[in-house]
């Protein structure tokens, strides 16, 4: 009856339409409510990582541009934003939230075009969550006295914000929403490979009628970011990105009185106990590491499986991995889109090579890849240990390293045996064990029997080299206030 490997009923492509989006050929900086040409006159290209085609030219910022933006933000802070009644401020933030919802399809498509992430994720996760962050923080704007009773909260002033390329719009929302709600003004630098949704957000902010200079966008590379961090009139720095850059920022602001929140790298442990609901845990492993091509700082990239179920979990995991559709990010059936950039693809490939050289057993799915663009199949290493580089270092790609463990104590010590401490996952049917584990893990977020669940009301951030401070929830709000 059953023929082996007989393929049938495969999905035909179901691409999301791009006819409703409008992209300019060229984007400048957005400073003081206007589009401003770069003082250097230089532009760089942002490309679609799925096709390697250019999407737009984007202004390359330098110190002068940053200075212009910070001055505009300072003026807006002193003259308008800090004097405005809090409930009025809240109305603007609500308006941004609603405009993002109204233009959700456009944002989703552009996010997938520019960053390579599957439309299923930009549509169902990034964009709705971005809107929710504005909604959540808008609600607090006129209730800060209740959020922090008897503490007389005041804004810092000008916030300089630098965001990464993995969740471009969402990270902009994480940063801008609490800053505005608490009365700060903003200078934000989008990532150089994914600036387009931030440019669309600038349009939304203009449409929302925000006073000039309250939110400013300066495009550019790392040096532009450094100019923001080092600018003398920036009071608060918020950065999401690599631990390496985080350390540079920490040094740069030492002794300046600037406040900082840093959300940096991670190498999360995802721990599967033998009594877990195995098939659901397998799903959690998939969500943990292959979400957004693994370009997630809290990705569950170190898998720990209790030895008695190791073979079962790995077999089921491989079977499940084969179901992941890799390809066109705009196809509604795509699970894994394009790797964000050529250089990131190279990093991932290098780590895969290292993993093989270190003696790890390598598995990748049989997914067929498009000819053009940057692609990586979902990948799994077994026969690795704590000393393997692919276990220690953040890869930021769809590469999972699985180890076995025997006891609770052993897995806790292994899970914490890393300079990082952003997130962790624990899978067990036993509630008491779950709570024991959450108190023992050195991680900012511990998910129990689930993974990669986010909510604006829930604080997010790391221990150790994964960062300083929290974003989201009351903690995230507090980071934009002084008492």
């Amino acid at each position, binding site marked *: 009856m059953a023929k082996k490997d007989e393929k049938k*009923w*495969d999905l035909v492509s179901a691409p999301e339409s791009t006819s409703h989006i409008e992209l300019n050929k060229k984007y400048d900086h957005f400073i003081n409510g206007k589009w401003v040409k770069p003082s250097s006159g230089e532009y760089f290209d942002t490309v679609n990582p799925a096709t390697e085609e250019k999407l737009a030219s984007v202004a390359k910022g330098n110190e002068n541009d940053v200075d212009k933006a910070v001055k505009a933000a300072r003026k807006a802070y002193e003259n308008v934003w800090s004097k405005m009644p809090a409930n009025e401020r809240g109305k603007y933030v609500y308006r941004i939230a609603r405009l993002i919802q109204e233009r959700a399809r456009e944002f989703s498509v552009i996010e997938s075009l520019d960053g390579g992430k599957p439309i299923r994720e930009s549509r169902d996760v990034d964009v709705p969550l971005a809107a929710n962050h504005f909604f959540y923080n808008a609600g607090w704007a006129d209730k800060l006295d209740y959020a922090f009773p008897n503490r007389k909260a005041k804004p810092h002033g000008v916030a300089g914000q630098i965001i990464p390329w993995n969740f471009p719009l969402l990270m902009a929302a994480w940063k801008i929403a609490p800053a505005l709600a608490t009365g700060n003004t903003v200078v934000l630098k989008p990532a150089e490979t994914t600036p387009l949704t931030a440019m669309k957000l600038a349009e939304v902010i203009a449409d929302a009628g925000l006073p000039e200079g309250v939110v400013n966008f300066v495009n550019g590379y790392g040096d532009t970011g450094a100019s923001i961090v080092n600018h003398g009139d920036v009071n608060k720095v918020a950065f999401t990105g690599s631990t390496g850059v985080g350390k540079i920022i920490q040094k740069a602001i030492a002794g300046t009185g600037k406040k900082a929140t840093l959300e940096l790298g991670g190498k999360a442990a995802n721990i599967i106990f033998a009594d*877990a*609901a195995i*098939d*659901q845990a397998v799903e959690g492993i998939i969500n943990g590491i292959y979400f957004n091509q693994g370009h997630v700082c809290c990705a569950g990239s170190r898998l720990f499986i209790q030895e008695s179920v190791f073979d079962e979990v790995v077999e089921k995991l491989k079977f499940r991995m084969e179901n992941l559709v890799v390809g066109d990010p705009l196809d509604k*059936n795509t699970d894994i889109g394009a790797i964000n950039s050529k250089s990131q693809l190279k990093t991932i490939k290098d780590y895969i090579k290292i993993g093989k050289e270190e003696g790890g057993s390598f598995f990748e799915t049989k997914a067929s890849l498009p000819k053009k663009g940057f692609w990586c199949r979902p990948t799994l290493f077994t026969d690795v240990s704590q000393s393997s580089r692919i276990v220690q270092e953040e890869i930021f790609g769809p590469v999972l390293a699985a180890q076995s463990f025997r006891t609770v104590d052993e897995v806790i010590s292994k899970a914490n045996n890393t300079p990082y401490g952003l997130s962790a996952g624990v899978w067990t049917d036993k509630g008491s064990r779950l709570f024991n584990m959450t108190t023992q893990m050195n991680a900012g977020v511990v998910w129990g*029997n689930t993974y990669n669940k986010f909510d604006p009301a829930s604080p997010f951030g790391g221990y150790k080299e994964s960062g300083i401070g929290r974003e989201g929830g009351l903690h995230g709000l507090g980071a934009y206030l002084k008492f």
Partner: protein
Amino acid sequence: MSKKSTKKLNITPVYIDQVGIEDRVARITSRSIKKDTKVEGLKMALNMIDLTTLEGADTVQKVKQLCNKAMHPHPSMPDLPTTAAVCVYPTLVKTAVDSLKGSGVKVASVATAFPAGHSPLEVKIADTKLAVDNGAHEVDMVISRGKFHQGEYNFVFDEICAIKEACGKARLKVILETGELGTLDAVRLASDIAIQAGADFIKTSTGKISPAATLPVTLTMLYAIRDHYIKTGEMIGMKPAGGISSAKLALHYLRMVKEILGDKWLDNHWFRFGASRLANDILMQIVKQETGAYQAAPYFTKD
């Protein structure tokens, strides 16, 4: 005769996480099934239906009409596949067998004091034998949910073993009536018991209880089938029944089968829908795909 079974139940409980199950279902229902994939899926689904009538008011004429519908789902499109089977009460099996002769459409009969199952084993065996002797190719039995809730898993197991024996060559579908089991953990346990006892198919529901088949329950049962397959290499069939009346939902089920069990199960030997209204919605969608326009319900024959 009835106590001949020497098999022993040997179960390790498998835990199910409801939230995780629902997440997985959401991933599957967000698949976009369009164009050729849709048409192929619709035809496959039509060919997997156990066209069912299980009413107190069933008559010989009613069953004959239903059999005709099973063989000729949409007379203006004669190339369409037939349904997989017709499902009736034991007393109407003979009528169905005669009506369907030569068509390839199977006859399934509910048995074992369907739907409640509250009868002694002797009666259940006699019920099963009547159906099989009258020519039923398949028997859809119900498990004793009361005994299951009392924790008498061996009773449930032995009963299924006995009915399996009474079936002879007929294939046995074991109805768990998941709407009465309460949790997905219980659904999994009942699935494992039924599979160990020799079920050829496991089936969600009688259709007489709400909720009947749901995607989370079906997913839980598919995992049980897969675990058995991984362990033994033996394939077990799946039949969600009741509450599946739209073509779109049927395609979600098929997609689930493909992703969880693989392509081998995409065949009416291994997967069935128990449904009475589903066929016409599928036909409506097939006609829409072929002609580009929806036709009104009166253009599709009731039976």
